[in-house]
């Protein structure tokens, strides 16, 4: 019963945040809506005993990624009005129809599809309980998934280097003129 109440509250919060992301005119409000969604999803992770993932979600997403987003929004400027003219006729209505169809298909697949969840590991208590603590996740991470783990280390290094390369500005080549001023080649 507790799980149901928390699920209902957090589902409402995440959906409200998601709608805020796409409806808000101001990008800062969009970012705040995304933040609400991320926190609500972190609570849903805790509800499913994924403790470590929930902590990482708050630290990496709600902390680092959202800070980066807000930083870039402030850098670019929030006062620019978004052009809302439709370049494709009926774009909004078509997009809404596509979104509704996608959501309906997803829900129909879950509600009417014949899924049967067969637990891979059955605990004596009957239903499988996977408690995603740090110890529990460390074991597969450094045995089965160690290659992927090392690859992500490489990926993060490359991404950081790439971001620096993209964001850096070089001084214009004009500064190669000698300090004595411009003189002809024959002098």
């Amino acid at each position, binding site marked *: 019963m507790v799980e149901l109440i928390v699920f209902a509250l957090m*589902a409402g919060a995440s959906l409200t945040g*998601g709608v805020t992301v796409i409806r808000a005119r101001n990008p800062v409000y969009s970012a705040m809506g995304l933040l609400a969604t991320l926190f609500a999803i972190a609570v849903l992770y805790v509800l499913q005993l994924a403790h470590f993932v929930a902590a990482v979600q708050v630290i990496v997403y709600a902390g680092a990624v959202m800070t980066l987003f807000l930083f870039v929004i402030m850098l670019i400027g929030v006062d620019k009005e978004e052009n809302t003219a439709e370049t494709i006729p009926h774009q909004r209505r078509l997009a809404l129809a596509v979104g509704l169809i996608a959501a309906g298909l997803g829900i129909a697949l879950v509600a009417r599809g014949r899924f049967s969840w067969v637990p891979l590991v059955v605990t004596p208590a009957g239903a499988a309980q996977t408690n995603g603590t740090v110890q529990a996740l460390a074991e597969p991470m450094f045995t089965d998934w160690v290659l992927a783990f090392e690859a992500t280390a490489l990926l993060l290094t490359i991404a950081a280097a790439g971001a620096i390369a993209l964001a850096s500005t070089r001084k214009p080549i004009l500064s190669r003129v000698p300090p004595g001023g411009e003189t002809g080649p024959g002098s």
Partner: protein
Amino acid sequence: MSLVVTPGWYMTLAALLFAIGALGILIRRNALVMFMCIELMLNAVNLTFVAAGRALGSLDGQMAVFFVLVVAAAEVVVGLAIIVAIFRRRQSASVDELSEMAG
């Protein structure tokens, strides 16, 4: 009355969040907001990973979420750097003004 929250409920919520994100990609023009919608869709997928992992009694779902988080962080760093670089050149973050290939 005891209603149990089954994995299907989490999947349904994830489907709705994914649809919202996809809708945002389709209707918004601001590159930053479109980027946020991508994050929304990634989070919806992560929610299905955790729900399915719990239903199957395996920790592999949570491992997948961990790696998706890392890749998403790298993606955000590079993507925002690209948006800043484009903004420097064009003074605009609207994707409509980037429709031609000429620099």
